[in-house]
């Protein structure tokens, strides 16, 4: 089995490439998530504002009573909470994809430099 000079191998690692590839991956991943989330969040927040105003008007005109207003606002609140949970979840997915993507970049560079395959699945 041929011996590996880790010192030489590490010197062979292209740190600049690892860094630039990692930054490019993070930018792409974050940008993709933002592009997905922005229209969704904007639409949901605008709709929530319009619907809350619509319900307030119904109450003002005495079309609906306190009990009905309470139930219908409760529906709006639950929907908004669900939207915020989605945004939080997508943020986690984005962070996870960036971390795992960077790990894969490092693993590829290490394999190229010192011929060791890191167990990244």
């Amino acid at each position: 089995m041929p011996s590996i000079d880790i010192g030489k191998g590490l010197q062979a690692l292209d740190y600049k490439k690892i860094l630039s590839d990692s930054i490019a991956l993070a930018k792409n991943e974050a940008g993709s998530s933002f592009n997905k989330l922005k229209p969704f969040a904007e639409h949901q927040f605008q709709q929530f504002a319009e619907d809350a105003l619509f319900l307030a008007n119904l109450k003002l005109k005495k079309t609906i009573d306190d009990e009905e207003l309470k139930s219908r606002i409760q529906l709006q609140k639950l929907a908004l909470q669900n939207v915020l949970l989605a945004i939080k979840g997508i943020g986690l997915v984005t962070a996870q994809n960036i971390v795992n993507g960077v790990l894969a970049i490092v693993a590829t560079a290490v394999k190229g430099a010192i011929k060791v395959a890191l167990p990244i699945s």
Partner: protein
Amino acid sequence: MKNRIVVALLMPLLLVACFTVKFITGYDEVLDQTVNRMKTDFNVHFIKLARTIQDSDPNNQKFENFLDYYDHLQADLITIKARTSVLDGKAKIVKDQVEKLDSSFQVFITMHKRGIPDRQGDDHHTDQNAINSSFDAIIILQESLKTTGKPN
């Protein structure tokens, strides 16, 4: 000497690199498909219900006339709650989303049981929007979870 410093600096990174990280649960195809179907079923139901509250018949919107839909809805809610209840701690957000959807429907059902009068100018579209938002929130997160572990 220089090599030793480089090794010392790089070692933690190499150790971390031996694992992939997991911050959130994976994609659930059954949940995704069930929620998409529930959204369609709900909107068909709502269109029928909205028609009855915009006419002059005060009886056709009664809860009892829509029991078939609500029976199926309750069965679907039981299914998705049971499915998410066995997921691990990384699925907390998905579990919370399903619970919020369930709570939304319990509010809606209580409101319908109490009675929805015929009323021009109020077709209850705000309620439809709210429940659709809850569906969409679950669906968009599931779509995002499809990319878990692989960058876009």
